[in-house]
């Protein structure tokens, strides 16, 4: 569904992504883990068109999307839930969702919007309760739910999520990951970028490890969880000290 070859991108003189190649197949949950500053957010921003790629290609559904503007890429069915939620703070929850469905209006699928809205409200009942509230007054977890809901309203073929667990309480994080798992079970294709590697690998089918702008590892999620290097670097398991204890 999504295939990236030798992608390079960055900000001004700074080159962040170096020869990234990866792919996401239909129906998969793929996660990209990596430390702060590895380029995870830059990668998603480049795919969604907010940052222009300098070299390489990004093929979404057999179409090269590198030259397209973000609004065109969304229309093709590739939606991003941006880092830090980025809800429309001064608009109500319901208006946020309606705007999420904007591409549906563009596709002349107006009749599906209210149906989708009901689906989102079933997925996140709290959003229904707060429908008339300004989005900026929601809690962090609720805003994250709204951001995911807003992206889902566009009926994406591929939904990309940038750090959905960032700054949320552990209990809420669990909720959010359950929802992502549920989306995967329903057949959605998800590209998930996370610092919380353990949780992300727990629900993903496949994972990539991104380090200083390069993909250094690609494995099935279970195998990455077992990988000693990944455990040491990203899962917080200190193998050296374990050896000493023995």
């Amino acid at each position, binding site marked *: 569904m999504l295939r990236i070859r030798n992608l390079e991108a960055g900000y001004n003189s700074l080159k962040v992504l170096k020869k990234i190649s990866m792919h996401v197949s239909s129906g998969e949950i793929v996660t990209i883990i990596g430390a702060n500053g590895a380029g995870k957010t830059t990668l998603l921003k480049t795919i969604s068109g907010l940052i222009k790629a300098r070299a390489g290609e990004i093929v979404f559904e057999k179409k090269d999307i590198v030259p397209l503007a973000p609004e065109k890429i969304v229309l093709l069915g590739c939606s991003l839930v941006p880092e830090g939620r980025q809800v429309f703070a*001064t608009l109500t929850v319901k*208006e946020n969702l*309606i705007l999420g469905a904007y591409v549906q209006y563009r596709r002349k699928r107006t009749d599906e919007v209210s149906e989708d809205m009901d689906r989102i409200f079933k997925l996140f009942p709290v959003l229904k309760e707060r429908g008339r509230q300004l989005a900026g007054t929601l809690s962090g977890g609720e805003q994250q739910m709204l951001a995911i809901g807003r992206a889902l309203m*566009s009926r994406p073929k591929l939904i990309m999520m940038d750090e959905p667990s960032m700054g949320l309480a552990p209990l809420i994080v669990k909720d959010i990951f359950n929802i992502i798992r549920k989306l995967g079970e329903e057949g959605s294709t998800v590209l998930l970028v996370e610092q919380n590697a353990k949780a992300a690998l727990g629900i993903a089918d496949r994972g990539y490890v991104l380090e200083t702008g390069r993909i250094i590892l690609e494995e099935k999620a279970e195998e990455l969880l077992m990988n000693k290097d990944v455990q040491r670097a990203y899962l917080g398991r200190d193998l050296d000290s374990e050896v000493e204890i023995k």
Partner: protein
Amino acid sequence: MQFGSIRYNTDTPELLFRYGMNWEFFFQYIIAGITYGTIYAVVAIGFNIIYNATGIINFAQGEFVMIGGMTAVTFSHFMPLPFAIASAVLVTMITGGVIEILFIRWLYKPSVIRMIIITIGLSILIREMSMHIWGESVRALPYFTGTSVSSINLGGVYISPQVVWVVGISAIAVVCLNFFFSYTLLGRQMRACSANRDAARLCGINAGNMVTLSFMLSAAIGALAGCVVSPITYVQYDSGTPLAIKGFTVAILGGLGNSMAAVGAGMILGVLESFSIWIMPAAYKDAISITILLLILFLRPSGIFGSAEVSRLKEF
């Protein structure tokens, strides 16, 4: 002194002192204040529309008002008044859109200061061009109904019919705008762009077009204000700037970006100005708005109506 008209500021305050203040005068002042206040509010709303979409203050806003008035006067020689006004609004609207496309759109992530300087430059450019097109003569549309001396008696208070037109048309425009922003998909798209531009693009909204649209809308409402007020205040190639200053004061007074508050703030400034004639020479009338502007910027930059909740949710 013609009470029906509000060209009171040519009279000296001595006249008022001789008559003393009574209820009839009081209402005349209120009505004069409301008339001017309405226009200030409409100009302020023009500021707010562009501010909300781009985060910049468009200092060429007053010129939109002037272009509206001037083109309406020109058109009124060829066609009936309603058509002349409609065409003038349309022409100004297109001008606004063209200005955005030519001067703003292609800038890549411009700083706010750069955009502001561009709009100041544009206002000078438009003013000079207008002087070459229309000359320096003062023009005015005819009164929409009646003449400059006709008046409506409203329980002992005489109002010029044009006052009713000014307040009525402006009120309708404000209500329509409010409806547009609150309930239409296009209006919501514009609000989404102002709330979070990148997130709006990620929803598939063309943010660039929304900015063009905001310039067109702002130009249109400015032109409408220019048309309705021109029988009372007249219009000249440089009459935009003073209006822009008043409108800017009102926009700041109400809280930048808050159009409903601008209406209230417009009334406050209009009435204050009109009562100021009673206690000090008319020449100081314009000083009122500058004083208010400074006071507000020093004491309460979020505006008197700035709601704590909403302003906290805004970027700046």
